[in-house]
């Protein structure tokens, strides 16, 4: 018990640390510049929300944080993304390893349809092929528990992942992302396809997860940003207009553009 107390103490001290810093980050799709000189930091064990209108570069930004952006043909980026003190765009960095340490959950729940619930959770671990069956069993339970899904699917482990409800599928994807033990999880509009009850479950889950993980969430729902995050960044036309504590952004933003956007007086 004491050990655990000390652990959580250490963690809360660590929570003041910065996990990711972007330094002069620019991104393009072909000739189209999607991000312009983004300098932002993501605090460890915090939820950082990214808000802004469609096409402002929110998704591109988070996709640059785990080197997913470059997977799109014609897409590239410049600048540095410092993750635990190391630039993830250094030539000696393996992007696959980065994506393991910085996981992602997408807008539309995308469980592997041909796989069972069980296989979906441990897909990443099976790929590595170094776990015994008994270890996989344990992992399935552990990560489904963490994703707050275990109670609902423990009797359906061998059904197709696609047979679950939308909200359950999304939590299955979260369990799958957690199973490879990342340090950071990027959520790209994780609840925009879900009903309010499933949304509340995911939001609650995000609150739990921040104790262990660092979270960045892109959202169109400003109330969601207000509910779940400690910090918020407002993007507009590829620029980071304002970045501050969420409380400050929603009660007294410094920038007129932020005020206009969050009060719905845009354009």
């Amino acid at each position, binding site marked *: 018990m004491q050990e655990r107390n000390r652990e959580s103490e250490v963690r809360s001290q660590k929570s003041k640390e910065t996990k990711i810093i972007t330094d002069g980050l620019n991104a393009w799709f072909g000739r189209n510049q999607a991000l312009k000189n983004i300098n932002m930091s993501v605090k460890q064990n915090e939820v950082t929300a990214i808000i802004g209108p469609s096409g402002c570069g929110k998704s591109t930004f988070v996709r640059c944080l785990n080197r997913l952006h470059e997977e799109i043909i014609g897409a590239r980026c410049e600048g540095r993304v410092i993750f635990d003190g190391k630039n993830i765009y250094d030539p000696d960095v393996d992007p696959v390893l980065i994506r393991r340490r910085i996981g992602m959950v997408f807008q539309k729940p995308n469980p592997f349809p041909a796989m069972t619930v069980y296989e979906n959770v441990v897909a990443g671990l099976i790929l590595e092929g170094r776990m015994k069956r008994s270890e996989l069993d344990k992992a399935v339970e552990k990560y489904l528990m963490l994703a707050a899904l275990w109670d609902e699917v423990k009797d359906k482990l061998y059904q197709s992942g696609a047979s679950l409800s939308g909200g359950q599928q999304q939590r299955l994807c979260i369990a799958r992302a957690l199973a490879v033990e990342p340090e950071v999880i990027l959520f790209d509009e994780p609840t925009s396809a879900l009903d309010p009850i499933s949304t509340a479950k995911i939001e609650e889950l995000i609150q739990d997860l921040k104790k262990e993980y660092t979270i960045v969430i892109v959202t169109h729902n*400003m109330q969601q940003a207000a509910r779940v995050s400690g910090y918020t960044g407002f993007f507009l036309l590829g620029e980071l207009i304002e970045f501050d504590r969420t409380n400050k952004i*929603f009660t007294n933003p410094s920038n007129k553009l932020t005020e206009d956007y969050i009060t*719905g007086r845009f354009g």
Partner: protein
Amino acid sequence: MAVFDEELRALKERVLKLGSMVENAIQDSVRSLVERDSNLAREVIKKDHQINALEVEIDEECIRLIALRQPKAGDLRFITTTMKIITDLERMGDLAEDICERAIELNEEPQLKPYIDIPRMAEVAQGMVRDSLDAFVRGCTKLPYEVIKRDDEVDNLTVQVFNELLFYMIQDSHTVSRAVKLTYISKYLERIADHATNIAEMVIYMVEGKIIRHMEIIENP
């Protein structure tokens, strides 16, 4: 959005209406004392329920807007400030009613002394109410600081009135009842000025997002 803007505008108008009703109540309450017009005093007392009703109405509208519009940033500060301001305005209405009750009692007896400082206090306090509401409507931050400063003037007048009445009471015990009632009235006016100061402080929050309540030194930026 246009609908919400219209709702905010209408809300602001209702606050102003409440403000002018309260201003009139204060003015008439002191007039009923100075002009020894008990009918006017009774009228003010009779009209207080209108102030109360409007306060409740505005309160309900604020709650409705928070629930349905989920206001943020400047809108949020405007609506929460409105909710607080109307409480202060309603209290001022109650104090005006209290002044009227004392005035009716005092008007039954011979006038103790010429009223000089009390009308002066009422004038300053009323000006503070007017200016703090003016600042609320215009989103101005200069006026509120002036209002806050003027509160000292009212406080000083309260002390002055008390000392003078104390002198009467020591001189002649027959004056005690009337002097105490006049002391009450000056205290009511002093409270009205305090409520105006509260409004001024809240307007500064509304405009600048800065809470200055309970701070010792207030600097005019």
